[in-house]
């Protein structure tokens, strides 16, 4: 990854530790971070960073918060394709301990110890992984003695005291796209009154899903994952009760289960740590912000599904899709989908914004995006397909769809549109393949379902072809816009 680091202290030693894995750019000279940020040099522009880290130390050097903000927003304007990240060095220093080395500050204007440097290096790598979409998605929360002090089933709503500061932090996470799930062993009727209690910061509609019963929490978490169509490994589980935590760890080792402090005063700090480790704030797309609304819609869809046959259900959903050649404004979302989508992804190519931008303007490629929705709501940009065309042949290189829209035959509608576009371009011969990853088994037989001919198969790869025009139409229930 191409990383630029701007700092108010010397970061050459750190750069030396990172440059095996990444390509690092530093502004020449000491203390040039603010000038460089406000007016990026030609060298920096030419370097074309994918990530820019602002490492601002306040323990030994100084900076004013206002300059930092201006620097960040200037960089965001100058480098629209880069992710600008300002790591929380103070929190990191607190956590790691022995973070500083006074000798280094004295002779090198570099405040960090070896331990500190390694922690910063790990933090940078972790943030980069998060940038690539490997961050967690769901915060699963216990209620009693986690969101409030007291036990609502025994003390009643008037006997509990909401942890308002903690709840405010959780609400802020939700605002940035983290999905909240409530997991509590309680009677539904006992919990109900809490949602109208004005001391509560978190309201009923902040949660995408609630599991309020006496089943074990691991089973409830697993079923929540299924209902939300998310992997169990995208959950972080917060519960004050060590026994519940141990049970969760034993039954679902993929779930992140942090230790929760007993002292209310420590909760805010605890939450900041969780946010930093598992839900780092990167550039948000509109899609992220709408996530909870979408998951709530998904719950409504499922209730509706329970009463009908599959065909009737799909027809009744009144799905619509707008399938079109990618627009420039959609490039970041397509890169994000390529990075995040593990299940419905036939070849699992991961793309940067730059790469997608290149594809979008390449006449030898057909890159279609899919915006879809149904009677319950707009699901946004949920899929993209890409084919490389040459002569009368086209090779499908990406078939990627968000797991939110799986199992609704939307893919058949999209495939129909893709083939229509390929036919329009004079293509008569379509090649496609699927390559196994840990998670993409759901689409192992996607092209079989589409009616392609299987031409080559091994344990981890399947290759297909299809002659256009196809004989039988693809069955779906989607209206095109």
């Amino acid at each position, binding site marked *: 990854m191409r990383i630029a680091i701007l700092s108010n202290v010397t970061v*050459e*030693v750190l750069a*030396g*530790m990172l440059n*095996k894995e990444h390509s690092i750019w530093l502004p020449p000279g000491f203390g040039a971070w603010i000038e460089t940020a406000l007016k990026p040099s030609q060298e920096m522009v030419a370097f074309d960073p994918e990530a820019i880290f602002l490492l601002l130390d306040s323990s030994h050097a100084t900076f004013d918060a206002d300059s930092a903000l201006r620097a960040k927003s200037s960089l965001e304007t100058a480098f629209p394709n880069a992710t600008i990240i300002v790591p929380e060095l103070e929190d990191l220093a607190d956590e790691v301990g022995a973070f500083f*080395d*006074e*000798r*280094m500050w*004295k*002779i*090198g204007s*570099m405040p960090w*110890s*070896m*331990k500190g*440097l390694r922690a910063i290096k790990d933090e940078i790598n972790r943030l980069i992984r998060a940038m690539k979409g490997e961050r967690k998605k769901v915060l699963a929360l216990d209620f009693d003695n986690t969101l409030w002090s007291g036990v609502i089933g025994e003390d009643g709503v008037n006997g509990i005291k909401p942890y308002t500061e903690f709840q405010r932090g959780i609400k802020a996470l939700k605002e940035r796209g983290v999905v909240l799930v409530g997991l509590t062993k309680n009677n539904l009727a006992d919990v109900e009154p809490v949602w109208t209690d004005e001391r509560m910061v978190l309201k009923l509609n902040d949660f995408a899903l609630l599991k309020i019963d006496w089943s074990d929490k691991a089973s409830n978490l697993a079923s929540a994952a299924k209902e939300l169509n998310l992997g169990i490994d995208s959950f972080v589980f917060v519960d004050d009760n060590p026994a519940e935590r141990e049970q969760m760890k034993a039954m679902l080792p993929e779930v992140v289960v942090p230790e929760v402090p007993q002292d209310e005063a420590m909760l805010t700090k605890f939450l900041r740590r969780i946010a930093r480790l598992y839900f780092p704030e990167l550039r948000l797309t509109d899609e992220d912000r709408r996530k909870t609304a979408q998951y709530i819609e998904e719950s409504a869809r499922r209730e509706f599904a329970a009463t009908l046959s599959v065909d009737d259900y799909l027809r009744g959903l009144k799905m619509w899709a707008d399938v079109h050649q990618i627009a420039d404004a959609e490039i970041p979302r397509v890169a994000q989908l390529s990075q995040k989508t593990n299940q419905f992804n036939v070849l699992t190519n991961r793309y940067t914004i730059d790469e997608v931008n290149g594809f979008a303007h390449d006449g030898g490629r057909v890159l279609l995006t899919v915006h879809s929705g149904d009677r319950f709501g707009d699901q946004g940009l949920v899929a993209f397909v890409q084919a490389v065309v040459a002569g009368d042949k086209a090779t499908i290189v990406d078939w990627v769809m968000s797991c939110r829209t799986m199992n609704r035959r939307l893919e058949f509608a999209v495939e129909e549109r893709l083939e229509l576009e390929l036919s329009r371009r004079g293509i008569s011969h379509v090649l496609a393949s699927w390559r196994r990853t840990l998670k993409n088994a759901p689409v192992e037989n996607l092209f079989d379902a589409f009616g392609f001919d299987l031409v080559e198969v091994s344990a981890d790869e399947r290759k297909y072809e299809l002659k256009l025009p196809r004989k039988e139409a693809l069955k779906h229930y989607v209206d095109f816009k």
Partner: protein
Amino acid sequence: MTTEKDFLVFVAGVLDVPAESISLGTAYESIPEWDSVMQLRLTLEIGSEYDVEIPVDEIADIKTLGGFYKYLTA
């Protein structure tokens, strides 16, 4: 007790050069990898690996890898 050879293998890893290419006699700035930034890094890496703290006013006086090794055997 860390042997000279173990020490050189560790240092070569930090410098990112083949272990055979350096010795205790290798001097500061005699190879491009060992510049003033690397001087700080070596001080930290060696300090952390072997649990020694080189006094700040002596760091600039270390002119060969042997100069670092001395602190391990002191």
